């Protein structure tokens, strides 16, 4: 779960890290009020993706009227597929210098990595490629966290020795997000040193491990349902499906993540485009199939559905029966091609044929067939 900036900052504040005064605004009027209360502000789009600034999602406002106009422009705009639901109005800081501080998971090392750099305010990937030596790194022991002398060395290595004590204290506070909140990314960029010498989080990125939501109930309750993403993904989540929206016209259902991904690839190879990724898992139960088809059919762009099932433990005849029931319950009229292989595949295919559903001989042929059928079909309106 990726938190919005204002949410991440609330969490940082709860860990004892200083953040600038700020207010959430759902409307231009609220943005104007925030500016009247806070003075000059940055009006910032709240979306769970990077690159807001470049997309025009951050504007400076020195008067309430400017803040109102900025919010009018930003609320509702589309940033990388996210419609901006609200803005965060934050008091402008008197910046003396900008630092980078972040924890993330280093997959190659199978460990958390802490990075600190005097070059803040830029994308850390860019800093890493342009001046790798300017980033100091530490792999804290995951059982006890970073020790004082390790942080001391890190701070000097980053050339930030003069900020040693306050910086080390701040890093220890941020580290708590790892063991206590199951953060997989906790980043402050820029970490601002103000002209008066305070150290304040200028921006904040916090991602909580989806696998750990069962023990992060507070975060889930506070922030879990607030991010307005894609409506189909929202609905799929409600139904407990593993679903990702894509921009093509062919709905996809597969059992198993790898198989499902390879099905998207086949559709593109056949000249089509997948409308979604949907992994219904090994069991492929009838109820799950119906839920998946239901979400896929909500999307008016979908012109046909390709289902790719490999029956390992799953029996194809059971999946076929479930699919026929689901199609009938949903009164589905769109072209449907099913590729089924594995346990009881002959029985499964026979059931499909008897019910007017095209079984594909193999995954590649099935992909070609659905692309052909959806090209021929008139667009739904």
């Amino acid at each position, binding site marked *: 779960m990726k938190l919005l900036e204002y949410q991440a900052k609330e969490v940082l504040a709860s860990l004892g890290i200083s953040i600038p005064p700020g207010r959430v605004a759902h409307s231009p009027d609220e943005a104007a009020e925030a500016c009247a209360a806070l003075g000059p502000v940055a009006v910032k789009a709240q979306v769970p993706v990077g690159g807001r600034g470049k997309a025009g999602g951050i504007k400076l406002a020195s008067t309430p009227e400017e803040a109102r106009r900025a919010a009018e422009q930003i609320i509702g705009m589309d940033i990388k597929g996210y419609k901006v639901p609200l803005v965060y109005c934050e008091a402008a800081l008197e910046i003396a210098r900008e630092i980078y501080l972040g924890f993330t998971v280093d997959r190659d090392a199978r460990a958390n990595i802490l990075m600190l750099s005097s070059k803040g305010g830029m994308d850390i990937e860019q800093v890493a490629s342009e001046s790798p030596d300017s980033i100091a790194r530490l792999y804290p022991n*995951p059982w006890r966290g970073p020790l004082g002398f390790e942080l001391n060395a890190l701070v000097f290595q980053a050339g930030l020795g003069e900020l040693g004590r306050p910086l080390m204290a701040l890093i220890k506070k941020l580290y708590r997000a790892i063991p206590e909140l199951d953060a*997989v990314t906790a980043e402050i960029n820029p970490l601002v040193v103000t002209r008066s010498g305070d150290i304040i989080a200028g921006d904040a990125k916090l991602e909580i491990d989806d696998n750990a939501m069962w023990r992060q109930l507070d975060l889930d309750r506070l922030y879990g349902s607030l991010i307005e993403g894609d409506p189909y993904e929202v609905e799929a989540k409600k139904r407990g499906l593993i679903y990702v929206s894509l921009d093509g016209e062919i709905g996809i259902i*597969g059992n*198993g993540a*790898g198989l499902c991904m390879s099905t998207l690839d086949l559709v593109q*190879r056949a000249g089509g485009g997948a409308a979604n990724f949907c992994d219904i898992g090994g069991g492929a139960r009838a109820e799950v199939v119906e839920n998946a088809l239901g979400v896929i059919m909500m999307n008016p762009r979908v012109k046909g559905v390709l289902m790719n099932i490999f029956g390992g433990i799953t029996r194809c005849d059971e999946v076929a029966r479930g699919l026929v029931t689901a199609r009938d319950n949903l009164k589905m009229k769109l072209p449907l091609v099913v590729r089924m*292989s*594995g346990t009881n595949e002959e029985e499964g295919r026979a059931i499909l044929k008897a019910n007017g559903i095209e079984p594909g001989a193999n995954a590649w042929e099935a992909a070609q067939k659905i692309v052909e059928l959806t090209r021929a079909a008139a667009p739904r309106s």
Partner: protein
Amino acid sequence: MSILLDASTRVIVQGITGREGAFHAEQMLAMGTKLVGGTSPGKGGTTHLGVPVFNTVYDAVAATGATASGIFVPPAFAPDAIMEAAAAGVTLIACITEGIPIQDMIRVKDFLRGYPSARLIGPNCPGLITPGVAKIGIIPQRITRPGSVGLVSRSGTLTYEVGSALSAAGMGQSTIVGIGGDPVLGLTFSDVISLFEADLATDRLVVIGEIGGSDEEHAAELLGRGSRLKTIAFISGRTAPEGKRMGHAGAIISGNRGTAKSKEEAFRRAGVAVAETTDEIVGLLS
């Protein structure tokens, strides 16, 4: 011959009295796996599926001489189960459980550094099978047949799909290892490939990767330094968008890292043939 698992490997199942654990332990027994016991705290002293149940892995190892374990316990308990197995002296640990928090796995990986002879497979994996001989995990025996192709994969159903195609074409397998779809894993592609390299009963290799991380790139580098195995690689997720988790917790492209293109190019640079679809694998291997 095979890697990791053969007819003499003494295996236990942690969570043997649970629904999943019991179902798959039965399948393991049915194909001849030397299943010598299981654990289920509080049920020590009882018998399940004809094998003894113990309260702790330590007790199970002491009584049965087990060296391998399959873990079928819920994600909240699986990290501890892995560490318990390692601490009890188990040297092959296959953790099937999906949904373990990443921070737990990072701590487990650190713990395992103290037990260098313990090999972890998974988590979030189908386990491993030496066709016709033994299995730990959930790979269906019927998609396999004994032979000389090594198969290593991050995906479950894609493994079954490819295993099934190989078997149908008469290309049996020495061992099939599903290393799992999580971002923080036990054995890597490189670890498993090195084992196949040293196994003279394996002469060909199929590597099934997917987007996310750079384990495939490291494996390609290893193969590029010289290999006696004829190898075919396949990567799923060519059309996956950046920043979206594609089912597996580890299947995510971050920025420009972990793309299918980068992985395919790494294999090609190493002189490894890359299959464009799973259907092509059999043809390229023969």
